[in-house]
């Protein structure tokens, strides 16, 4: 026996179902691995580009600018002078969510080289792609604060709301990503459904329009899990819709439901995903 001082890990497999307790223990043990892989994902994504990290914030910035310019000239919303900040806050939240779930969806399947050869909890794959977006989101949030200051609102105590805003975005994207990644292993068309769904979803999320401007359907839009996240980003910067609390509750409820579904899926399939790859 090796005298490393650490307890020898023992693997016992006696059925395809992983008990939740074992699953939680394995996930907890692989936190270092998750951090290393998430960092790798992030650097790999921007390494080849000549401006590197600039792209991580450049893309949402360009997206927000285009939206702000186009919409201001073609559609007239009743928006304050800080409309570009308004759009940018929505785009920051939305981009993290949409890239997070679309990369997470195919993450287990794309990493089949690793996942058919060595075991660590399969939830690490979607988690690492979602977490890798966190670096970009943090940079974008800093830019958001600067932009907001440039439009006349210096950072204050409200700015701290960005922390729970990012946390909520992370939890929501993570739970959704976990569920979609597991479904993608079994149903190979989930990836396309997600792509198509995101296009419609973007317009159903108050990214470039204020919630109150859509009238009676705004109650429905508050049930959209991403609305709560977007409203929190607004609350920290340009001010949120009066109904933001309801939207945040919806986001939390969605996250909790997705978490339960994810637990059920990974409990059943964590040790048999490899069979379907």
């Amino acid at each position: 026996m090796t005298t490393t001082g650490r307890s020898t890990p023992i693997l016992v497999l006696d059925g395809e179902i992983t008990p939740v307790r074992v699953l939680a223990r394995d996930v907890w043990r692989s936190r270092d691995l998750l951090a290393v892989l998430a960092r790798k994902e992030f650097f790999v994504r921007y390494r080849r580009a000549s401006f590197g990290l600039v792209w991580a914030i450049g893309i949402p910035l360009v997206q927000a600018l285009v939206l702000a310019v186009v919409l201001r000239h073609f559609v007239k919303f009743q928006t304050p002078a800080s409309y570009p900040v308004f759009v940018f806050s929505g785009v920051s939240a939305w981009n993290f969510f949409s890239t997070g779930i679309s990369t997470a969806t195919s993450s287990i399947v794309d990493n089949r080289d690793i996942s058919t050869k060595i075991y660590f909890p399969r939830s690490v794959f979607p988690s690492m792609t979602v977490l890798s977006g966190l670096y970009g989101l943090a940079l974008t949030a800093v830019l958001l604060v600067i932009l907001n200051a440039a439009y006349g609102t210096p950072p204050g105590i409200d700015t701290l709301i960005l922390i729970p805003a990012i946390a909520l975005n992370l939890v929501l994207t993570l739970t959704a990503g976990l569920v979609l990644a597991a479904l993608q292993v079994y149903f190979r068309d989930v990836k396309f459904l997600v792509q198509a769904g995101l296009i419609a979803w973007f317009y159903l999320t108050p990214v470039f329009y204020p919630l109150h401007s859509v009238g009676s359907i705004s109650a429905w839009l508050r049930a959209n899990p991403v609305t709560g996240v977007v409203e929190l980003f607004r609350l920290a910067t340009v001010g949120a819709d009066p109904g933001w609390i309801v939207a945040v509750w919806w986001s939390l409820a969605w996250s909790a439901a997705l978490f339960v579904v994810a637990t059920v899926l990974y409990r059943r399939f964590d040790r048999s995903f490899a069979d379907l790859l």
Partner: protein
Amino acid sequence: MNQPAIQVLGAGKRYVKYDDTPMLVSRIARLRSHTSRSSFWAVRDATFDVARGEVLGIVGSNGSGKSTLLRMLAGVTAPTEGRVSVMGRIAPLIAVGVGFHPELTGRENVYVNGTVLGLTRRQIDDRFDEMVEFAELKSFIDTPVKFYSSGMFVRLGFAVSVVSDPDVLIVDEVLSVGDIAFQLKCIDRMAEIQKSGATIVVVSHNMGAIRNLCSRTVVLHNGVLRHDGNTEEAISLYHELLSEDRELDEQPGSPTPLAGERAIDLRAHIEKFELVDHLGQPTRHVDAEKEVTFLIDARLIAPADGPIVFFSVTNSSGFRVYGDSTGWRNSTSYRGGDVLHAAIRLKMRLAPGTYSCDVLIVTSDGVPMTPRVPSILVYAAGRNTVTGVADLQAAIEVERHSPIRGEISDAPRHETTRVFP
């Protein structure tokens, strides 16, 4: 302490085979009520233990369930029934360089891959220099691995797995990568790992590697454990099973000749084609120094004058190693119903490896007179130093002469490395 490192107890794995990929859209739209699927057992009721420090070989033909068993040992997939338990950190040496990212440098990849293998950052720091040295990549370690040659890529992957000091090392058909020098280095390192108390599981189609490395070997066939124990016997059984599979494949063959094959003049059927060792026991594991005998019985269905018996040995790359026949010496006339009995005695002085042995009986005009019989596959356990095809039994003598000039030295010392009769 005496608990085995690996314990497999009645383990079985059932796979579901889908004829088409399930799609969510069609499932929801109920375009097809059921996706057609069937299930099969890739491995069934496997039971064995591997002690700490033991090197276990797993052999079996393609589709025998080796990969599934290995996946269960690596914890990638759980058994449908039974139980698999493994003590300690497992490092699979399967398709090395798994998880290497082409954009990252060698150094970064070592850290990522090491973490994937379950090492902490500290542990990688401690082993980093050794890994780089083992991979012989000192001057390239900060180059993105996309610029590596395939050999460099594999070496680095190997180095990380092998130097990670795993408790259980799983080696799957990877000894065929890298050049000979690196392969030998890996084998040396594996021996070291084993000495330090780690357990090694080797899967290979290369019987030479299995014979050199494994003290014990299990044979899997159609998902069932057919043998557990002595490696030589395992290799023999493996070849027997290979021949059996071939026979099954060739069973539906009709007497009509295949395209490109010469027409046959059907006069006899080969009823027996066997290989026995010097004690008369059937075998598929042939010692180069011991005489073995191929026994043939052919029953004639039509008269034939002076039939000729051909015998040939072919190596695994399809090269005819040896061929011989009775020539025209045999002028005996046979009538229908007679039995031709032939015994071919020989010593298979060949380099270690798998060989295919065939027999053919032709008429005195040179036309085959029996349907083809399945080859006998044998493992020739030759001397380990021999490479190539034939063992020409060289006596290699090496002498040392004193380089000092002008002195009458003592009688030069002879150091004879090897002398053969």
